């Protein structure tokens, strides 16, 4: 029994293209993917493009006014829209500019050229269009991408874990960074990444986004109890989590 291949397309907005590269790499490590899907557009890897895609994977955050129109066009065509990676999901590292006014950020980045740029604050794509599923992370996890494709082929929407990073971290017997007095956002961050950063001794940056049910204040208190400062905590938040932490946005 052979299934018709699902028609998919990849689109990119403001981001580093690392999630697309992860997809590209996954196509090489798992060539069976190409038996399962037909790629109609993927600027990162091919110059041909064709309309008629059913599933759109969108990488990157929305920063330019013209991005909005492009996003709406994709939404009008695709049956299913999947946010691919932290930038599309929670505005990613781009959201770091939320710690200051957009004008100030533009001035720091572009200097004298600032008047030639009309960037706005970075926004996740679900601020513009409805999104059916999310593949979080910076970059995405290749196994999660494979699982998501399989679920889409089965006719269901991809599910992502709602457990904190700590779960996989403990199962792998990594040494807890918080217990060693270091900064780690693991307890409030969505797992599913294999706790890859703590596994290599680096505290979680929160790239997969904050869990809906978590103890934000509790973690902040623990940072302080560990001898870290409030600034340390806010620095961690500003990397990936400012979109989900409205109270910390635009500080004087």
């Amino acid at each position, binding site marked *: 029994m052979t299934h018709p291949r699902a028609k998919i397309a990849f689109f990119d907005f403001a981001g580093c293209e690392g999630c697309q590269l992860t997809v590209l790499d996954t196509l090489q490590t798992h060539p069976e993917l190409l038996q399962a899907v037909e790629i109609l557009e993927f600027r990162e890897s091919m110059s041909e493009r064709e309309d008629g895609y059913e599933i759109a994977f969108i990488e990157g955050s929305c920063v330019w006014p013209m991005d909005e129109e492009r996003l709406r066009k994709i939404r009008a065509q695709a049956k299913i829209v999947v946010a691919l990676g932290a930038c599309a999901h929670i505005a990613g590292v781009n959201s770091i500019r939320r710690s200051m006014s957009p004008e100030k950020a533009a001035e720091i980045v572009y200097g004298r050229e600032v008047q030639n740029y009309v960037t706005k604050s970075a926004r996740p794509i679900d601020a513009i269009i409805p999104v059916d599923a999310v593949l979080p992370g910076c970059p995405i996890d290749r196994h999660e991408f494979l699982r998501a494709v399989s679920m889409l082929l089965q006719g269901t929407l991809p599910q992502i874990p*709602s457990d904190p990073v700590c779960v996989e971290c403990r199962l792998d017997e990594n040494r807890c960074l918080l217990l060693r007095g270091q900064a780690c956002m693991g*307890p409030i961050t969505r797992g599913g990444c294999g706790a890859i950063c703590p596994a290599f001794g680096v505290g979680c940056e929160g790239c997969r986004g904050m869990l809906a049910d978590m*103890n934000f204040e509790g973690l902040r208190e623990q940072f302080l109890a560990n001898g870290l400062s409030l600034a340390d905590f806010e620095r961690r938040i500003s990397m990936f989590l400012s979109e989900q932490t409205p109270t910390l946005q635009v500080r004087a």
Partner: protein
Amino acid sequence: MLLKILSKSDLPDAVERLGQRYRIIAPMLHEGQTVFKELLPGDAPDMEYRTTPLPPKKALLPPREELIQLQSTNGESRLEPVLDVQPAVLLGVHTCDLHAIGLLDKVFTEGVPDQHYINRRRLTKIISLECLEPCSEHSFCKSMGTLAVPESFDLHLTDLGSDYAVEIGSKAGLNLLWKFFTIRDAGDDDYARLNKAMSEKWSRFNYRLDIDATELPGLMSLNYADELWEELGQQCLSCGACNLVCPTCFCFDVQDEIDVDLRSGVRTRVWDSCQLARFALVAGGHNFRIRRGDRLRHRFMRKGKYIQEMYDRPGCVGCGRCAQACPVDIKPLDVFNRLAAGHVNQSEMKKEAIV
């Protein structure tokens, strides 16, 4: 006599011989901590270890375990159970963990027998290790009655300095001993050494429950509505660490995963945690333990009362792993003792009121 003596210098050879026939899972130094791991040729077990992040439970109930493989060819589907077939030796199990394995044996054989667990358990011989010092400042095994070894080992070793005293707990243990170990019979002097080690050890375990462990279930019932749960719920990060490192926790989640060819897949089980927000989420979207304090209370109820009542074995073996793992310092003994203190105060208040 049943007591044998194994010279420590003969252990490496015995382990090597065992390794040719069995998969050996033993405490091993790994990146600054001791973890239970499969020994590879040339590896030496860390027989002096104190504690490990995960308990040896993981050798019998792996954190992630494939249960079923699915394969579909030419329209025909086949489901194959995945069963471990390699005999194993679990070496260096401390007494608290052995008590916990005794609980798991009950849990996975009574009611709905779990063939994956039972199969692996049947293939695994246990060589346990007498505890002469507390594992950590958090261990309160003595209070929980788990500092004395239960009779579920195949062989049990007690450190006598240059030798191990070896007790034989089963026929399988006896076979292991004859086939793989170089030993001698214990003499009067060895018995004296063993008695000395055993009588001296108890006074080293001072961290303790303020009540008798048999009073715990009652204490937990009395304090079901205590405000302590809500207070601890404010601190708790719901990270699940306490469950995941616990030797008596046995909840798991089952996940199916189909490959992108839609022809093959696996069913996997993964250790679960009742501290995670989605644990008590049921169909329809209702979550019957939405508050962190409620989840925390549930765990303490399991440890102090429910498991004891259901399985007639302690739900907490006092290993101290959860206290060590908790990033916000929630310690089971503190919780039990605080409840006990509150209860004592209440009864004293009552007494005063009556007088």
